[in-house]
């Protein structure tokens, strides 16, 4: 069943088009990824789904209801774990959850029960009465997720939930998100971490400059855009012209990122490896989602 249906979404800020005709369908219970460089429109999309930001065009339905008309009702069944820390530093960990529960009209006793459960779920039970500024960055991220679970959402939107986390905490968060997925909570996950997307997402879109440039299952996307094998050549100084001539002669297609050439859909047997090794450091490997990402969003480094 489709739980979120976006048709031709348009969002403009003063002189920037943040979303430029976005269509999307997200099924109930899936983990759906939003990938894209900074400024691609991921956070804008999330703010629109949360009816925190009005649309300039198109229509967005959540569980069949229009976000521009039924904001409150839709927000009751959803929650957001934002990218920036907006925990309430004037309140303790427990008070943060109880105050949040009040916004959803959850009765006090029930709120206390859920707060304790959610803190335990995110391994924060020891920090019940701590102040927010006593928490590490990783604990704050986990608390933001615990807070987002207080209303037992049907849909949770996670905006770069593991950016800046150490590997241990990242794996902990991944494991918890998988558990939520098993419980049937629909997840919309915005990320710049390709490993995260490949591990967690059932389906994903890659966005660039306000448009969707690819959509599908992670493995399908890799095979469709990159083939099954990839040759990566870090070219030696002065050998670039020679390498380009070789690739052109063989009729291969490639992408150059700084001094690294990624030759699409190519195997060792496509080359005279002895000769190739005089041109650069060579590795033959399976392509990843990151290769797809770089191919589709261009080599430009966006700020």
């Amino acid at each position, binding site marked *: 069943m489709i739980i979120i249906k976006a048709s031709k979404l348009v969002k403009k800020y003063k002189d920037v088009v943040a979303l430029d005709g976005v269509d999307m369908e997200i099924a109930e219970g899936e983990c759906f990824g939003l990938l894209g460089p900074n400024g691609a429109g991921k956070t804008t999309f999330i703010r629109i789904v949360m009816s925190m930001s009005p649309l300039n065009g198109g229509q967005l339905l959540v569980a069949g209801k229009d976000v521009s008309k039924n904001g409150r009702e839709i927000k009751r069944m959803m929650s957001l774990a*934002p990218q920036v820390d*907006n925990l309430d530093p004037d309140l303790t960990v427990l008070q943060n959850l109880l105050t949040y529960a009040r*916004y*959803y009209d959850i009765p006090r006793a029930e709120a206390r029960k859920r707060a304790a459960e959610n803190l335990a779920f995110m391994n924060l039970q020891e920090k019940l009465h701590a102040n927010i500024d006593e928490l590490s960055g990783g604990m704050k991220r986990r608390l933001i997720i615990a807070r987002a679970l207080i209303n037992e959402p049907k849909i949770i939107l996670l905006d770069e939930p593991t950016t800046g986390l150490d590997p241990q905490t990242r794996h902990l968060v991944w494991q918890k998100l998988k558990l939520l997925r098993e419980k049937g909570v629909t997840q919309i996950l915005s990320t710049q971490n390709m490993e995260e997307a490949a591990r967690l997402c059932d389906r994903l879109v890659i966005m660039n400059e306000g448009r969707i440039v690819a959509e599908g299952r992670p493995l399908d996307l890799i095979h469709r855009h990159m083939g099954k094998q990839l040759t990566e050549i870090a070219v030696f100084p002065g050998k670039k012209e020679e390498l380009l001539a070789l690739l052109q002669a063989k009729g291969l297609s490639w992408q150059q990122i700084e001094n690294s050439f990624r030759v699409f859909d190519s195997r060792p047997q496509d080359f005279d490896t002895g000769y190739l090794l005089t041109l650069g450091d060579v590795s033959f490997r399976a392509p990843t989602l990151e290769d797809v990402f770089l191919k589709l969003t261009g080599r430009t480094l966006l700020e």
Partner: protein
Amino acid sequence: MMGAIHYPFRVWQRNLSVFFRVWKPELAFSLAEPVFVLVVMGLGLGSLIGSIEGKSYIQFIGPGIIAGYAMYSSAAECTYGSFTRMKIQKTYDAIIATPVNVQDVIIGEILWGATRSMITSGMVLAVISVLGMVSSPWALLIIPLSFLAGLMFSSISLLYTSIAPSYYTFNYFYTVFITPMYFFSGIFFPLTNFPRIVQDLSWLAPLTPVAKLTRAMAGGRWSDDLFLSLAVIVVVTGIFFFLALKSMKRRLVK
């Protein structure tokens, strides 16, 4: 399904929870300054002045000081306090991701600012009553009046906050608006000593009608221009409440 009317109250409750964590120093500080001013001006300056309008100087300024600090409490809450929650702590962003919307947040902030005015004036009223400066039970009306005055000053302050680019610019608000009003609203001297034009202009300073009313209530003396004072407060509150709501929405909804 509950109606939507209670959502501003949820924001008010959030601010109350924070207040309960820090209420001791908060209350001490919000009482310290008015009492300090009352004693220093009332006894110090008062010994040189003799009596005004048949009262000792400290009796004259006591009720006006309640009005002045009712103003300061809500102004501080809805300038520095609101700006911190909006820009630094991103508290508004966190709240509007729940069923509470932007309009509820703004109304909740104004209600809370008014509540702070009421708390402060309640305490100052208690102090000046103990010091024997209140001669009528009508003085209890000062408490609801200061809630109304708080709504007015919160709305004015939040309107300024809605266009303030940084903390620094609150200096202008206090230097150009709040502080002159504090001195030219008839709290420390009767405006009858000033030329007609100053007296007329002082009506534009919304603290003037509040000070008139607190003085009348503390003394239990009613006069006809008090209805006009009350009407001025109600109208100014209505106008600035509407403007604050509109301008704050424009800043927050993007």
